[in-house]
């Protein structure tokens, strides 16, 4: 009698142990975690195949970069440099120094069309703020006179920066998100993350492929439609895709649209016949700076610049819905949304 009880207990106990063992050791379904937060004046999505702690570290990195490079945040490196315009040298962090140097290199490459000292014009127009305005010509001329990347002094050995004229101001808005993406990607890789997707206000960076091993599928925004509508889809791994276009930040006055990509030569929003420029490059800072540069240069000069660059592919869309691809993309992009056609 007692023996029976013991046997039953052992048998059931075995099943219980087996079930618990299964529950505890069962390989977890691939754990992808993500969050979307409003930071750097835009929406930041980080999606990783990894731990919550790593995700938090990634957002913290974004926060740090914003605190260094925001133009409007009191106490940031850029804020301090701008405050001291025409005056003292300002020591900045290694991150900020690197981004300023890179921005100045693109300024040279584009003959000053891409200019990180665009601040006086940006502030004059106020596009993206609650109070945009069409400035009068006199104000535009005056602001234009304060935009000149050649008047930024750098002292690399001591990491100091100086703007040589009062009223000048740096703005890293056209390159900062690219740097942030590169920096977060580096942090994630150092922590062993092999699959991740970052979307920093439309700047996409992917690490590896998706957790299931297939490539990431990234849509390129249709510049004539609402957010989320795509012209085509790219299948990518370990690269970054950055798109610039006039449709993202703008205001409409007297039936005319004024967008946020300002041409420092005219002082007005750039009008080059391009509707959007997408750059694909493993370096997101390059992709970010190039997308704005090519947009400002226009179709022909833009394509010529792209020819010179290594590890860079691009997709340009004109206002008349023609799509231009660099050679490396031609095999990949086979179909376009309705209404668009390939050049050629």
């Amino acid at each position, binding site marked *: *009698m007692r023996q*029976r*009880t013991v046997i*039953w*207990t052992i048998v*059931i*106990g075995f*099943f*219980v142990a087996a*079930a*618990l063992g*299964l*529950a505890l050791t*069962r390989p977890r*379904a691939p*754990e*992808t*975690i*993500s*969050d*979307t*937060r*409003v930071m750097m*004046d*835009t*929406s930041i*999505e980080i*999606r990783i195949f990894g731990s919550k702690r790593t995700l938090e570290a990634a957002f913290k990195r974004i926060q740090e970069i914003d605190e260094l490079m925001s133009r409007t945040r009191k106490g940031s490196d850029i804020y301090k440099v701008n405050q001291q315009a025409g005056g003292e040298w300002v020591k900045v962090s290694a991150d900020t120094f690197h981004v300023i140097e890179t921005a100045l290199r693109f300024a040279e490459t584009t003959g000053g069309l891409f200019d990180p000292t665009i601040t006086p014009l940006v502030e004059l127009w106020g596009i993206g703020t*609650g109070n945009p305005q069409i400035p009068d010509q006199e104000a535009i001329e005056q602001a234009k006179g304060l935009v000149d990347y050649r008047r930024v002094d750098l002292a690399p050995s001591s990491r100091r920066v100086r703007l040589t004229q009062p009223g000048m101001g740096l703005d890293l808005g056209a390159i900062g998100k690219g740097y942030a993406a590169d920096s977060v990607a580096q942090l994630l890789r150092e922590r062993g993350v092999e699959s991740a*997707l970052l*979307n920093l206000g*439309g*700047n*996409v960076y*992917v690490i590896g492929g*998706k957790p299931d091993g297939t490539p*990431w*599928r*990234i*849509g*390129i*925004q249709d510049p004539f439609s*609402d*957010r*989320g509508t*795509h012209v085509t*889809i790219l299948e990518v791994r370990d690269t970054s*895709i*950055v*798109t610039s*276009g006039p449709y*993202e930040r703008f*205001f409409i006055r007297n039936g005319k649209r004024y967008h946020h990509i300002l041409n420092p030569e005219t002082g007005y929003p750039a009008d080059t016949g391009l509707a959007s420029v*997408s750059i694909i490059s493993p370096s997101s800072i390059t992709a970010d700076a190039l997308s704005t540069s090519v947009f400002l240069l226009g179709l022909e000069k833009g394509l010529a610049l792209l020819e010179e660059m290594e590890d860079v592919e691009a997709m340009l869309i004109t206002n008349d819905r023609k799509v231009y691809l660099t050679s490396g993309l031609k095999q990949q992009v086979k179909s376009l949304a309705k209404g668009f056609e390939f050049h050629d």
Partner: protein
Amino acid sequence: MTRSRYFRPGDLIIYGALLIIFVMGTLIAAGGLGEEGAVAVITQDGKEIRRINLGQVDEPYEFQVENEEGDYNIIRVEPGRIRVIEASCPDKVDVKQGWISGAHQSIVCLPNRLVIRIEADAPDAQDGIDGIAF
């Protein structure tokens, strides 16, 4: 009355308890106790203000989210999906974006610092796109 050779009242409790643990263990192992359906999380200024299991929505409904400055977004919830239908911000990017329902999808209203996102457990987005470069 003869007492059962195998089942004494005391033993039954033990058998019962063991059986329950066994069944629970199996269920957990099979993942059958996890939450089902897409969960939408709404945050404002980084703080979670609402969490909605879209899989458990029977009747569509709408509600308004407001910040201290009086800026607002009106959000509509239907079975399995969520969207913004009206907003005080000038560009209305959030309204134009329409419905979201798939894992990791999000709607952001920058001026009002509002984020609606679908948690990772949801089914994948139907358009098969992981992200969009804009």
